[in-house]
């Protein structure tokens, strides 16, 4: 589904991603962890072309994201993304948020579009909020809407960038519940950047550990948490689990 080969990414002269080699298979659930500034978000954002890569090859669903011939807008309909700050459209209602992209990108008919949206809102437990605006909902609710908005495009893969770190602690659970369901579904390839170690342990098949723009470890979940290979990862784990 996703394949990085010797990918490099620079911000100006800053080398943000070093020699990334990584393959993620269809239906896999992978968690990406590492200290702040290690390049997790950057890596995630290269996958749907929100950031360009300077060298190497990055294949997503068989298409080369780095190539100027690739239609990024088309590719993005297959790769959903959920952001730390939700990024719901503030000027649209919940229902409109979900229906906008299917309508103008997929040209999905109104009736079907609405039916899909309502079913998804049901699934994330927010069927009663369809006519509200994002600012009228709590963070946890907004994030679940954002997930529904991604699902409405019938993506093959979904990227989560710290989806719970902007939430009040009591809101985290409801969002993680929705995410667990997605992770468990083999129809979706799921890639999650998170600091929720319990969640990572519970749902992921594999853990990628990054530091300083490099992938330091790439291991099955149990193996990573039980026997981290690098000193850097051990230190990191001890810090986040410290309290």
């Amino acid at each position: 589904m996703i394949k990085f080969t010797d990918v490099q990414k620079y911000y100006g002269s800053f080398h943000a991603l070093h020699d990334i080699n990584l393959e993620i298979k269809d239906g896999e659930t992978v968690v990406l962890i590492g200290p702040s500034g290690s390049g997790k978000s950057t890596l995630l954002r290269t996958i749907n072309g929100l950031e360009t890569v300077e060298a190497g090859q990055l294949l997503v669903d068989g298409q080369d994201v780095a190539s100027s011939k690739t239609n990024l807008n088309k590719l993005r309909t297959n790769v959903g993304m959920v952001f730390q700050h939700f990024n719901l459209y503030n000027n649209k209602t919940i229902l409109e948020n979900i229906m906008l992209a299917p309508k103008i990108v997929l040209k999905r008919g109104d009736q079907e579009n609405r039916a899909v949206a309502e079913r998804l809102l049901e699934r994330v437990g927010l069927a009663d909020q369809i006519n509200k605006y994002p600012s009228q909902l709590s963070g946890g609710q907004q994030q679940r809407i954002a997930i529904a908005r991604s699902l409405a495009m019938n993506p093959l893969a979904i990227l989560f960038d710290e989806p719970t770190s902007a939430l009040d602690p009591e809101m985290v659970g409801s969002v993680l519940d929705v995410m667990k369901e997605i992770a468990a579904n083999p129809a979706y390839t799921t890639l999650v950047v998170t600091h929720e170690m319990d969640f990572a342990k519970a749902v992921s098949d594999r853990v990628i550990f990054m530091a300083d723009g490099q992938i330091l470890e790439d291991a099955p979940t149990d193996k990573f948490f039980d026997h981290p290979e690098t000193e850097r990862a051990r230190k990191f784990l001890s810090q986040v689990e410290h309290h």
Partner: protein
Amino acid sequence: MIIKILTDNWQPLLTGFGYTIGASILGLIGSLVLGTVFALMEMTPQPLIRGIGKALVEFFRNIPLLVITLFFYVVVSHVLKINGFWAGTLALALYTSAFIAECIRGGVNSVDPGQMEGARALGLNYTQAMMQVVLPQGFKLALPSLGNQFINLIKNSSILSFVAGLDLMYQANVISGANLDPFNTYIVIGIFYLLLTGPLSVVMTKLENKLGGSN
């Protein structure tokens, strides 16, 4: 004293009020249209159009309204037959459009970049994301500063008095030249201007507080 000025001069005062309102409304419409065009020019990725947009905005922002007005009145009017009212109003629209362009651009720039990203990540292209998501929010964010520009525009319409535009300020000069009571005459005219700008500025303050509060 003030009552006497009102009763003696109700006709020129009413005329002046009408011309001031007329110039303000026409100026507003003109500058909104032009200002939006300038703003869109300034924001396009196309470098030539962007350069022209920026140059026009900088040009009109940095020279006095009076100079533009006089130019229309004594030079342009040789080519187009326009009287003082139209010369003043056109200058007003052109001058204000530069400020309106900046307001709109500022509004769009202050929309959270996450809004554009959120839309792009779902496969919308730049234009779709701009028109559906970013621009509507940008306009809303620009409302308070647009309102302030409208107040400035009303005040600046007094420029018409330099070119016999028949507006309030022109009438003030005619009236005080005749009754030799500039003190009370200008107070009366001031009240007329406040009738226009005052309520608007109250509305704008409310709006600013409201928008500021919800964010």
